């Protein structure tokens, strides 16, 4: 059941009306029932995978707590807890790895050893990456004593399966999400209005902008050898529009729907194209994946014994300052390798992750040189002009990474980059080539105006303006003009795709 289907809207309506009519103490149970119905709608058999993750994580969490209560000697308790944690992680990440990466492994083994192992035709359970990461985050939190294990298996099942977020996140944290899921919620008209506005905004980004930009993206990326450099560049810029509008639009719908039930999910986007560096970009793009990686991979790997040994060695060899940063850079590369692999089982995604990781690591190592350079050229780091330069520089670097992300293969990504540079000519803007990519001039105009609207709103948000609160203070006529434009504009200007247009991140 796609988030942009009429069935989904009806499903949410029934769920929300019932939620506020039944006795409040059963609200969480109501959400659980609807979450399982929602997941089952994508395939009843897939529920088995969801139950597997829920069951194994719940059991591991409870076992960890039992060890804690036994008052065993410190060393013995630590070893027992580590065994339980390892088993829990293996059972779940193992399942994810087998389902998601077997065919990638088979393809590489066949290519290297000239074997002919057959590919598996397993169906990847929807949202498995998201709910597995969310569950394993919980398990690690229990292991570290950051939160208590949930005693009620049904309540825990809701934490894993809460329907608005299960397909494409945001990846929730137990301490912030669970308490809201189990709370009793009163109907709040203001919250409902804000939630509906956010949902409409998400539909606008997805249906008017993302699906329209996707036409050019698919045409050029799938037939990249037929197009000139400038059209390759247009396609990658369109992809930066499509991916952001698709993913952040989806998040707006998800967060709006959750808010209808009184649940505020963690922010996943903070105007990423205003980032001044790649590090800043990852603080603004898919935030919950970034913070998950930071807390559950980056810190543990950096603080591990073997990384400590590398740190001591590098301090001896490279001196205190550089030596201190080297193990952190290695951990950072491991994180971004995983971010790449998380996006999909292909070499292009590994290149995508390592590209980001390398830029962040090298920037960190060269930070003193960079600071010196700014001093020499007397650049005022706080000036508006310098900020614009930083934003543009980051945007270019991000767009280079989109070649890896969207190209059909790693070699196609490099070919497209080469064509962009070597076959660049502005004639495509004059000879009508732009109109051969599946969109007419009106589509381009809608895209331009739509992007300017999003830019204007994002700019205001960057300045600290809260858009919905600010809108609520405007005169009635103005407010309803905005609602009207969204309500009628979306069906009027929404791009009708010939295929069923799902969300990009719902494939993970």
């Amino acid at each position, binding site marked *: 059941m796609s988030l942009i289907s009429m069935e989904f809207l009806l499903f949410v309506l029934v769920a929300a009306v019932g939620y506020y009519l039944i006795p409040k103490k059963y609200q969480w149970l109501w959400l659980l029932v609807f979450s399982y119905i929602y997941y089952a709608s994508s395939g009843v058999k897939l529920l088995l995978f969801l139950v597997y993750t829920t069951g194994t994580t719940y059991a591991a969490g409870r076992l960890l707590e039992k060890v804690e209560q036994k008052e065993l000697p410190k060393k013995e308790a630590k070893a027992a807890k580590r065994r339980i944690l390892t088993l829990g992680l293996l059972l779940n990440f193992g399942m994810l790895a087998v389902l998601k990466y077997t065919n990638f492994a088979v393809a590489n083994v066949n290519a290297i050893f000239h074997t002919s192992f057959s590919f598996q035709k397993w169906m990847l359970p929807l949202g498995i990456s998201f709910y597995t990461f969310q569950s394993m985050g919980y398990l690690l939190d229990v292991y*570290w004593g950051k939160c208590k294990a949930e005693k009620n298996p049904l309540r825990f099942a809701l934490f894993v399966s809460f329907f608005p977020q299960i397909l494409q996140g945001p990846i929730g944290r137990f301490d912030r999400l669970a308490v809201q899921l189990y709370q009793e919620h009163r109907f709040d008209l203001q919250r409902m209005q804000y939630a509906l506005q956010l949902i409409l905004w998400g539909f606008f980004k997805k249906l008017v902008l993302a699906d329209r930009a996707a036409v050019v993206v698919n045409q050029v990326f799938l037939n990249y050898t037929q197009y000139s450099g400038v059209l390759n560049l247009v396609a990658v810029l369109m992809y930066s529009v499509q991916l952001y509008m698709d993913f952040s639009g989806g998040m707006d719908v998800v967060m709006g729907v959750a808010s209808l039930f009184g649940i505020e999910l963690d922010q996943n986007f903070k105007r990423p194209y205003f980032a001044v560096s790649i*590090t800043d970009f990852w603080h603004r793009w898919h935030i919950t994946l970034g913070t998950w990686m930071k*807390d559950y991979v980056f*810190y543990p790997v950096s*603080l591990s014994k073997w990384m400590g040994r590398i740190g001591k060695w590098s301090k001896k060899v490279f001196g205190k300052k550089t030596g*201190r*940063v080297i*193990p*952190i850079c290695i951990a950072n590369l491991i994180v971004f390798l995983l971010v790449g692999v998380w996006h999909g089982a292909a070499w292009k995604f590994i290149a995508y992750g390592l590209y980001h990781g390398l830029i962040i690591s090298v920037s960190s190592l060269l930070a003193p040189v960079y600071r010196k350079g700014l001093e020499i050229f007397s650049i005022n780091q706080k000036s508006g002009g310098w900020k614009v330069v930083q934003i543009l520089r980051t945007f270019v670097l991000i767009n280079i990474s989109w070649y890896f992300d969207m190209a059909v293969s790693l070699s196609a990504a490099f070919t497209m980059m080469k064509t962009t540079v070597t076959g660049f000519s502005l004639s495509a803007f004059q000879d009508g080539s732009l109109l051969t990519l599946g969109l007419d001039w009106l589509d381009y105009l809608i895209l331009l105006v739509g992007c300017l609207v999003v830019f204007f709103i994002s700019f205001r948000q960057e300045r600290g303006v809260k858009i919905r609160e600010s809108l609520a203070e405007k005169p009635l006529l103005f407010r309803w003009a905005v609602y009207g434009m969204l309500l009628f504009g979306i069906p009027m200007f929404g791009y009708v795709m010939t295929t069923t247009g799902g969300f990009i991140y719902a494939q993970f």
Partner: protein
Amino acid sequence: MEQLLEILSEIQPDVDYKTCTTLIDDEWLDSFAILSIVSELEEAFDIGITPADIVPENFNSAQALYQMVKRLQEEG
């Protein structure tokens, strides 16, 4: 405390560590800076910091960091 302030200033200058109580919340320290601080604290005070200790409550101010160091020293 003086030694701690010296470590912080060396890793991330331009912050008034004596008054700032939002080192994490206001993003004065990024994850690279946090790990550099951890590495220096472990060496200077002979303590072991675990991922469970890296929470905003322990890193939001120099005072909070000092309290964490003292606690970890006591725990041995």
